[in-house]
């Protein structure tokens, strides 16, 4: 088990290192002085010279990179050009908003999709299966930003049941905060359910063909016991991994849904920073999402042995 954990931790390191290097070179690919880009148009000569020194711009690239890497490790991501705020706290504030929506949505989607996918596999080629698979295929073909717009039009404008745009923080008004979360969460749940059902179904089908399932049935276990005790634990693995990937991808791709519902999340921060050429914030967002992505996949992998101990032994 310990060897599994250590090996998995070591495997995450190159990914983080390479994304760090990519973000470092990003700013140096842009023509012009990196210090001037990072400080914006309003910078005076003194602070420009100071940043030059701190970035090590008068020295070679390897020195610049090691200086930069040390600052990253200390959590120093610089200041926003537009607001002057420290990038790290800006990124974390916005991340909390996105994370709340994404985690709730993925948890709900998994709670719907895993049983549904197993049912579909259990009734393979039956009416229920065809219905569920067709619904999943349609759902996963609808882009989340369009689905969001349509839900917003239907429930926000036509029916007037839910607030249309904006965001209320939980600390201000928990009830209002929840009503504002319904549409964005529903949008993501519908989309992700489509993806997860198909995976849950495919991996259950693989397992249902195996000999020990036939054996479990032939010793007279009820179908419920076969599905729950023997099929679920073995079939859940691939879906569990996919849940991790979906979570990570959503944190990167949630910008479109945040745009539809005007939510001040991490995706919106990144896109606004790209428009505003706020390079320290762009770097900070990219690094942070890469970090969270690696972290989620790490946690997913480390929890994997909990329901499938074979992984840790291999």
């Amino acid at each position, binding site marked *: 088990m310990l060897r599994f954990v250590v090996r998995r931790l070591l495997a995450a390191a*190159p*990914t983080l*290192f*390479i*994304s760090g290097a*990519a*973000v470092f070179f*990003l700013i140096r*690919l*842009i023509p012009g002085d990196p210090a001037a880009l990072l400080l914006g148009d309003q910078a005076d000569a003194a602070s420009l010279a100071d940043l030059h020194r701190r970035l090590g711009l008068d020295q070679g690239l390897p020195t610049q990179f090691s200086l930069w890497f040390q600052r990253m490790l200390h959590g120093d991501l610089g200041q926003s050009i537009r607001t002057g705020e420290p990038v790290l706290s800006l990124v974390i504030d916005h991340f909390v908003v996105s994370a709340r929506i994404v985690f709730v949505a993925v948890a709900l989607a998994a709670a719907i999709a895993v049983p549904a996918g197993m049912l579909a596999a259990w009734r393979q*080629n039956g009416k229920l299966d*065809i219905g569920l698979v067709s619904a999943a*295929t*349609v759902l*996963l*073909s*609808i*882009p989340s*930003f*369009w689905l969001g*717009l*349509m839900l*917003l*039009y239907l429930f926000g*404008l036509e029916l007037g049941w839910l607030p249309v745009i904006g965001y209320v923080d939980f600390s201000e008004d928990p009830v209002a905060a929840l009503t504002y979360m319904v549409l964005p969460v529903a949008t993501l749940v519908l989309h992700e359910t489509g993806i997860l059902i198909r995976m849950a179904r*495919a991996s259950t*089908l*693989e397992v249902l063909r195996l000999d020990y399932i036939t054996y479990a049935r032939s010793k007279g276990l009820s179908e419920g016991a076969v599905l729950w005790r023997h099929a679920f634990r073995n079939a859940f693995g691939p879906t569990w991994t996919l849940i991790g990937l979906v979570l*990570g*991808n959503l*944190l*990167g*791709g949630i*910008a*479109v849904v945040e*745009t*539809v519902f005007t939510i001040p999340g991490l995706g919106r921060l*990144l*896109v606004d920073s*790209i*428009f505003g050429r706020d*390079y320290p914030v*762009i770097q900070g967002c*990219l690094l942070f*999402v*890469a970090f969270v*992505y*690696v972290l989620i*996949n790490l946690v997913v992998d480390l929890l994997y042995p909990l329901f499938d101990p074979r992984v840790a032994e291999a």
Partner: protein
Amino acid sequence: MKLRKMNAAIGGTILGAIALAAGIGLFWTPFDPVTLGYAKRLAAPDAVHWLGTDEFGRDVLSRLMTAAATSARISVLTVATAVLLGTLVGVLSGYLRGWTDRVLMAFNDALLAFPGILLALGFLAVAGANEYGIVVALGIAYAPSVARIVRGTVMSLREMDYIAASRLMGNSEFFIVWRHVLPNCVAPLVVLATSMFGWALLAESALSFLGLGVPPPAPTWGNMLAGSRPFIAKAVWLAIFPGACISLTLLGINLLGDALRDRLDPRMRNT
């Protein structure tokens, strides 16, 4: 069995219809897609403008037809970039093995372990929003999946007797790769390329929706959808039709892709 054929037929029909509309759109559209017409702004669908007009009085159907060709072009170029780049890396990695393989795959896996759309956003932050920026950014983002599949296929092929036989006949390594290795990579690549076409279309629409894709006035489904947001209460058709086009195309790709996978990938049969 029957179901798979039906899926392929539905998917093929949808894609065929959209490809036809895009093809016609290259040469002829009912109205000019970018000329402004202030007389008829935000007009609901009627006999003249079948799908209505937008806030500048431009015909929605004409714009959708033009946009289809743009999206198709970007997606095809993206997939081509990813396939070329990924095949190159995969063949080098799988055929040469050793340190080349280890170094290339370390980079490959790092890229693979990273959301593609984020990579594209980072790249566009540097390169600025335009058609070829998207193609390069997404092409690089999708290449690692191609490289993985090609590498796997090449690694199993290079141990085959007929490769050794070809070498004994005095054929060059380049000839062997071209003549014997690459043709065997086509089937798995077709399956992957079909899904990638869908990913590329979706990513391009999302980027255009965010304002980081093809800049207006050139229409794409994504930027038309973005443009519809301020008018959604008054002119919901502006939001309905571009989104429906994206969804239908993706549905067609998914249906066709599933059918192709069932047919070409023996491991996926009967699942």
